[in-house]
């Protein structure tokens, strides 16, 4: 065995050294300031999802602006809580940042005894997009407007089944908000993700679906969209009214941004904030995001933090009044 094994070991060692030096060579910026080495961009969800797709789009632009490599790492689990709990304990040096999804980071600490982090622990960095959530029924459904659906639910509490992705998620919150605003009761049947919930709905196993805008657009021939959670009409579904137009005072969506470990120094925050700002204002990037059905924003750290506080108050009220917490 000896010679062959040694040869393989030697080859492996050479490869390893080559790989390390490659990483070192590509990962430095010219001046002495932040950043000096590759940045980890943690996605708290599975690859292939919207957070991942967005980060993959951002990566080349960010690398261009920051002058260092940006590595996307996936750390799914516990609806994102696993990654956020880890982020709280990460070095606050700016080299680790994480996707920041609302309402997840607000609901999880509220409903779990110990989610591993508190909403306030995550330092908001930048908010770049929202995926609106809409409500839809099958094409042959007797309901043609949100009002008809709500009226029926008011007379028949718990009889209508609604599918959506997961418990204590944006979809779950959206149906809770609708119940809260209209005083109705639906039976929410959580699926294990957006794709299974769409399959559940298309197969006729639920009468109503709460879905992300991209799924509503992709399957628009197979459903009637009764309302969408934006403030203005959603350009890709011009026929669908907003919840507010349909008479229910609510918006619904998944907000996506990035956050940092607590106590990250302000000058580091400023560098990263400027980088994300430049990327999300890039016309080419914006066009790509529009095409995927996202609503884009350019909201910096301070304003993002205020937004999170405001949402937290709203969500806490809804959950408390419906007895969820």
């Amino acid at each position, binding site marked *: 065995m000896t010679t062959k094994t040694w040869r393989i070991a030697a080859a492996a060692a050479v490869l390893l050294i080559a790989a390390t030096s490659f990483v070192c060579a590509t990962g430095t910026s010219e001046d002495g300031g932040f950043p000096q080495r590759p940045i980890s961009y943690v996605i708290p969800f599975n690859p292939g999802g919207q957070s991942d797709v967005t980060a993959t789009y951002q990566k080349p632009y960010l690398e261009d602006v920051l002058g260092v490599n940006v590595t996307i790492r996936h750390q799914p689990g516990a609806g994102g809580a696993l990654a956020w709990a880890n982020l709280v304990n990460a070095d606050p040096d700016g080299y680790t940042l994480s996707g920041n999804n609302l309402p997840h980071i607000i609901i999880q600490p509220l409903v779990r005894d110990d989610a591993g982090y508190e909403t306030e622990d995550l330092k908001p960095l930048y908010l770049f997009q929202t995926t609106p959530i809409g409500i839809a029924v099958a094409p042959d459904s007797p309901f043609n407007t949100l009002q008809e659906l709500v009226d029926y639910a008011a007379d028949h509490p718990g009889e209508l*089944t609604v599918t959506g992705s997961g418990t204590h998620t944006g979809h779950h919150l959206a149906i809770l908000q609708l119940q809260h605003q209209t005083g109705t009761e639906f039976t929410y049947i959580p699926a294990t993700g957006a794709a299974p919930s769409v399959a559940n709905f298309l*197969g006729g196993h639920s009468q109503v679906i709460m879905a992300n805008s991209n799924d509503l657009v*992709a399957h628009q021939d197979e459903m009637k969209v009764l309302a969408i959670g934006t403030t203005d009409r959603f350009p890709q579904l011009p026929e669908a009214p907003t919840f507010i137009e349909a008479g229910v005072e609510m918006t619904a969506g998944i907000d996506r941004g990035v956050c940092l470990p607590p106590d990250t120094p302000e000058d580091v925050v400023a560098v990263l904030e400027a980088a994300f700002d430049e990327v999300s204002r890039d016309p080419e990037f914006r066009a790509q995001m529009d095409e995927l059905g996202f609503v884009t924003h350019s909201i910096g750290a301070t304003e993002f933090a205020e937004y999170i506080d405001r949402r937290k108050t709203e969500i806490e009220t809804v959950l408390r009044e419906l007895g969820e917490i």
Partner: protein
Amino acid sequence: MGPMLLEALTGVLNPVSLLFVVVGVSAGIIVGALPGLTATMAIALLVPFTFTMQPVFGLVLLGAIYSGAIYGGSFSAILINTPGTPSAIATTFDGYPMAQKGEAYRAITTATLASVIGGLIGVAFLIFLSPPLARASLKFGPPEYFWLAVFGLTIIAAVSPRSMIKGLVGGGIGLLISTIGIAPIQGAVRFNFGTLALQNGISLIPALIGFFCIPEVLRMAESSSTSSDAVVPYKRQRKMVTRVFHALIRKPWLLLRSAILGTIVGIIPGAGGNIAGLVGYNEAMRASKNKEKFGTGIMDGVAASESANNAEVAGSLIPMLTLGVPGAPPAAVLFGALLLQGMRPGAELFTYHGATIHAFLFSVILANIEILPLGIILGRAVAALMQRTKVQTMAPLIIFLSMIGAYSIYNNVADIYTMVVVGLLAHALRKAGFFPGPIVLGLILGPFAEQGLLQSILMGRAGGSIFQVFFTRPISLILIILTIISVVTPIVVHYRTKRGKHSRIVDSVTRQEASE
């Protein structure tokens, strides 16, 4: 249609595409063979690189990796009794006993040929029957998932070689472990004993590595007395490929049945290659005249599992391409890759992007054919290398690779602890006669059963009748009948052959039932 297919063919039959198929399949095999590195991960890592490529080339590369990785999982299943990807769980049942008998190369050849044939049958379904099959898959609702899981649990009979009672207890342990973490419906955190590490439950892949790999390595270390011990004995025989091919071709139903089952399981969203392999294995055993030989190291077992899991690859692409609903986790990542290329799954995909998509489908055919030479060459090399490597080198190396594998799946250190604890537990259980097969089955099917059950109950409550939801839907009825057949068959066999090797198993079934 004509010019589009021609364009698709030129998209595939050019040097760059062909190179990508070879590179993709080889890389896939290596990734698949390393426990913990899965097809999903390999595809996810590569998507950013394909982003800047022409769509055809990007998709060709990803499709080749997917096919290669699912096949590659059989290497470690056969050689070290550890499924390289979850899809290869059922391959361990007969593959490793074959290797122990010195037939590692024969097992790998069988796995290779079965993968190629199964994969090609799956692609045939993908190309010719996508739209109707995808429509039919939507009929699978919560009650059907529940019954599928219950049917799946009857496989415990097939994977409990010694004692049925211990198999059932093992299945129960697996089901219990699967309840750790956040409850799928109501969202409560269960059995985490106040630790954050258990908030997400026991991750499947670290647990798989722990259950299969660690006990094997410990056993290896315990039993090795002399320094020249090889991990598996290895004999290289001449004309192996032709001989295995002739043996397999004489049992066309074995491969066809597994491939069809694998395709169906692939189409059903959420049920992946692991379930495909297990169902293929179980049905092959049930149809066989020599049931008692399954699990002792026979070709049929390896062939049944491998043709099912490679057919599942194409199956999982069917609902993804036609409906935009991925059939398995790796397909979900491919879905993300399509979106990045600006291609939306659905009808538009087969018309507007028709040339690209057909080129992709052709490349999956090529990838499956490429598995043949690449698998034989790599398989021979790997099997020979393992034979020459001493246990002292091999045991720590496997532990090292296991740790990397467990960590890399979610970049989470806690998963390494999970793997080690599960591994030690599995070692102790094994000494007490509990094998990992039933436990892992419970672990995989538990969440399916739980979600299906609770979602169905919610549906029943809303609609007024829980009974109706569970017992009146056509696919559910078929699954219920299959479950009953699967449970009753061993008892009937018992009365027919009172003194067969099978009777001990059957005895324990009947005793178990009498006590209930």
